[in-house]
């Protein structure tokens, strides 16, 4: 009987917790709208961009797969205290990132995080990439392929690399490793039009896993 009771309590608790997360996501959606986040970010997939002009017209990155892309802890902290991710202002090849992203109050940051984490993409397969130092991936990133020409990354001597792509210096804290792989494997799903080359047919699936692992090991 005792076991039965604790089973019931357990079940009820789980149900309560799930219900709570749903409630937070709903509150987060309301806060997302109230804070005018939707003026610069769309949250409904699939990808809408078909031309270069469509990309240039955007005021911020799409967030319809945010729950697959970001680590929840990083996202919650960033929403309350955003720091520049891209080195340059959005869609600019000259101006530095002004670092003026809207900030959310602590409570809203938690609920908006729950809302964004509820937005996922089916193409991201959980457990496909383990963050780990990976010599093959490192060779691809810095030598065999032009990745480092467009992305900053952490090195023993400090941060180095190009500026046109988002900085990957914090990628290990910021990004879900499984998403990095999905991003490389499914360019048409996540970024049908982008200034980074498609590597499908250039890098094998194995090498995409290697380089994803390497990126997922980046810490500032």
């Amino acid at each position: 009987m005792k076991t039965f009771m604790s089973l019931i309590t357990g079940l009820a608790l789980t149900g309560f917790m799930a219900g709570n997360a749903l409630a937070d996501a709903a509150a987060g959606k309301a806060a997302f709208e109230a804070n005018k986040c939707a003026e610069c970010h769309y949250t409904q997939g699939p990808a809408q961009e078909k031309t270069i002009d469509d990309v240039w017209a955007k005021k911020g990155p799409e967030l319809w797969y945010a729950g697959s892309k970001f680590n929840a802890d990083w996202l919650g902290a960033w929403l309350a205290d955003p720091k520049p991710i891209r080195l340059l202002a959005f869609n600019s090849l000259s101006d530095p990132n002004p670092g003026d992203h809207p900030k959310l109050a602590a409570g809203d940051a938690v609920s908006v995080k729950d809302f964004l984490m509820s937005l996922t993409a089916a193409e991201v397969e959980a457990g496909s990439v383990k963050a780990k130092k990976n010599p093959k991936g490192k060779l691809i990133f810095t030598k065999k392929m032009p990745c480092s020409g467009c992305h900053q990354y952490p090195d023993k001597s400090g941060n180095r690399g190009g500026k046109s792509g988002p900085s990957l210096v914090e990628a290990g804290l910021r990004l879900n490793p499984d998403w990095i792989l999905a991003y490389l494997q499914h360019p048409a799903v996540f970024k049908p039009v982008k200034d980074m080359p498609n590597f499908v047919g250039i890098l094998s699936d194995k090498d995409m896993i290697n380089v994803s692992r390497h990126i997922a090991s980046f810490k500032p």
Partner: protein
Amino acid sequence: MNRTMKSIIFATTLVIAVMAGAVPSVAEDVEKVFKFYCAQCHGESGDGKGINVTEDFPVTPRAFNNAAEMNKLTDADLRNVIHEGGPIASKSEMMPPWGKTLSDEDIDNLVIKLRALCQCKGKQG
């Protein structure tokens, strides 16, 4: 096989290729293509001084206004290196492969644009 049948097969293959997201089949305005994909390294004016060329960058991207250098290459060389990336021409891997990103028509238009920038015809061959 009759004509209609052939064109149906052709259209279906095209749709599948587009859906697979392989290579976009619609060419865009070459000025936009150059600014969007190439200027980040080669500079908006093609002078080789794009925003990515910091002191960490191992080589200098080709300055397209350097007629002497650009004249050493045929149009086919240009097409090939844009499609496959630097290593195909024994050049740096920092020159990315664009063949899975740009359509053949986009690449042909870029070759014409580069010839306008260098004001040169290139090696004939």
